[in-house]
């Protein structure tokens, strides 16, 4: 026990003193969170609509134009028809409405049947159609007002999405999983390959120490680091980016530990395969890089083509980030994420087993 205690303390000192490791462990994920958090993928781009008038509008028509300009999801520009048509051709408008200047007559004069023509940008069908139905609605209401018909049916809108989940809520658990993966894979991959290459592991073998003690000390260090990472990144997410944590922190801790064990296994496997430190990033990135984009870190799996989803579904990082996300954003309990946890434990067992096969203190050249 004394040996294990001293080895663990020493390995923690070494981790903390390694500036590069600290940078990649805490600051790189923070920077990624900052960048993606500021981009904010949840801000829907405004629908650009153009209004074309054939002549100076009547006061009623002017009022109608002003009403449309008030709609916040629209970016409205008013120009002559030829200018708006050109803008549409240049893909600068989602839809252009051609409005007769006397669409609405002066007060007191009875309105006549008029036609508003809509020119749709086929590349932005969805936004254009939405704009058309909104404008139609505005036209109907204006007409009802003009003809003095009482409004019998009302739609009352109340905002009820209390959690107000945003992209940052999706992002934070993804970044946590990503950070723990990177730390586990690279800090073990690099450092143990270096120890092996420099003969440090062989020197340790010349003492009566059990190799498992040395490995355990290093694993304990990295499990602690992964917990610090998770706490730090969630804290920044909550305090600075106003992310939400609804579920249990204890459950997040459990998920983090299982996730770290999974990727530590991968790290040891890589340092078992790699013969030089130089070959570590090549081998590690081959495995880690695809997961970075497919593991549900930045974008939901649903945005991928189906065949890719089927593959991405089973990646260790996907289970990891999804479990964290379900607990953080939906308040999932252990029973709700049971399947994900079982898969994570399965991956952990498989990767630790693989590490056992490939990694040894003696290296391949020794007899």
């Amino acid at each position, binding site marked *: 026990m004394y*040996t294990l*205690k001293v*080895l663990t303390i020493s390995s923690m000192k070494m981790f903390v003193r390694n500036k590069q490791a600290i940078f990649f462990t805490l600051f790189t994920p923070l920077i990624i969170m900052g960048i993606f958090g500021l981009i904010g993928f949840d801000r829907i781009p405004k629908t650009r609509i153009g209004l074309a008038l054939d002549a100076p509008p009547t006061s009623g028509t002017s009022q109608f134009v002003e009403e449309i300009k008030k709609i916040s999801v629209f970016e409205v520009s008013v120009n002559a028809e030829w200018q708006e048509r050109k803008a549409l051709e240049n893909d600068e408008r989602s839809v252009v409405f051609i409005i007769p200047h006397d669409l609405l007559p002066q007060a007191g004069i009875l309105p006549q049947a008029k036609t508003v023509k809509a020119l749709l940008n086929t590349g932005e069908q969805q936004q254009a159609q939405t704009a058309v139905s909104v404008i139609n609605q505005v036209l109907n209401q204006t007409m009802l007002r003009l003809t003095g018909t009482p409004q019998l049916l009302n739609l009352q809108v109340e905002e009820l999405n209390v959690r107000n989940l945003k992209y940052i809520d999706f992002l934070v658990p993804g970044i946590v999983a990503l950070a723990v993966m990177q730390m586990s894979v690279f800090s073990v991959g690099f450092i143990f390959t270096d120890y092996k290459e420099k*003969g440090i592991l062989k*020197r340790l073998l010349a003492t*009566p120490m059990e190799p498992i003690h040395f490995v355990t000390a290093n694993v304990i260090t990295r499990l602690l680091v992964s917990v610090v990472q998770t706490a730090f990144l969630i804290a920044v997410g909550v305090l600075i980016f106003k992310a939400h944590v609804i579920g249990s922190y204890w459950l997040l801790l459990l998920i983090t530990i299982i996730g770290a064990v999974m990727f530590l296994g991968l790290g040891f496997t890589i340092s078992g395969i790699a013969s030089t430190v130089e070959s570590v990033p090549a081998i590690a990135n081959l495995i880690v890089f695809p997961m970075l984009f497919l593991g549900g870190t930045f974008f939901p799996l649903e945005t991928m083509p189906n065949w890719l989803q089927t593959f991405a579904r089973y990646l260790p990082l996907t289970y990891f980030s999804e479990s964290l996300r379900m607990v953080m954003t939906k308040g999932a309990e252990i029973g709700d994420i049971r399947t994900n946890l079982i898969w994570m434990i399965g991956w952990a067992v498989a990767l630790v087993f693989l590490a056992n096969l490939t990694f040894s203190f003696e290296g391949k050249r020794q007899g």
Partner: protein
Amino acid sequence: MEKIIEVKNLTKKYGDFTAVDNISFDVLEGETFGILGPNGAGKTTTLEMLEGLKGITAGQAFVAGLDVAAQAKKVKAVIGTQLQSSSFFDGLNLKELLETFAALYNRKIDALQILESVQLLEKSKSRVKELSGGQKQRLSIAAALVNDPKILFLDEPTTGLDPQARRNLWELVENIKRQGKTIVLTTHYMEEAEVLCDRIAIMDRAKIVAMDTTKNLLQMAGNDANIDFRTGFGIRHEVFAGLPGLIKLEGSESEWQIVSNDPQATLASLFNWSRENNVNIFDLRLRQATMEDVFLKLTGHDLRE
């Protein structure tokens, strides 16, 4: 004195290649035993088998009464090991490093005292990468001493060091020797073996070709010494023919080479003659037999081939 290491018919094979071929030797308690030989002779492999780092193909080795093959862990606990090229963790300072190493033996130590004994006290807060080559080797010896071992194994402790650092390390080894520890070292420096070792096994091509005390091995090459010199002007052959201890006389006029079996007497007479006849002697060179000659005589090839 008691035998502290017993090696019987020790053999190591890698496939068809035999790295160590059926060697046997004993090391006595308190002595410094050297294994001398060129690179690739099997010195390191022999040492690593005794240290429990390499499997034994055939034969037996007992270290401190323990069968290495069966009780490697117990052997490791009572020996100190310096590997040929061992690095240490860069993230710890020397004091922390030695304390960590001591913990591997389940021991608490006064790291500063050990650092002082290898003259690294002022470096206790430094990292390994800040040390010079000689300091690294001294640290490596310090790490081998954390468990207060009975036997110290040093694998080419001075390879790659400059002459000053080498002498410095020899002093350190002598100090450790004075504490009564048994030392087994490998080297391909003849001078090192002559200075440090009580007994030497000469290894060549996986076999031990000779083993004896350093003094006896040196005698194998004979006591003969070569004396070369020049005189200020031409001298007749007969003048030197009567020098005491003379075995062979070569040269003429002012260039002379003598082989003598009693260099002290030969030189004394030569100097007397020089003073009495007012003949100056220039470029006098005396070369006595070294382990180098012993090695050449035993193996038929040079040590540095």
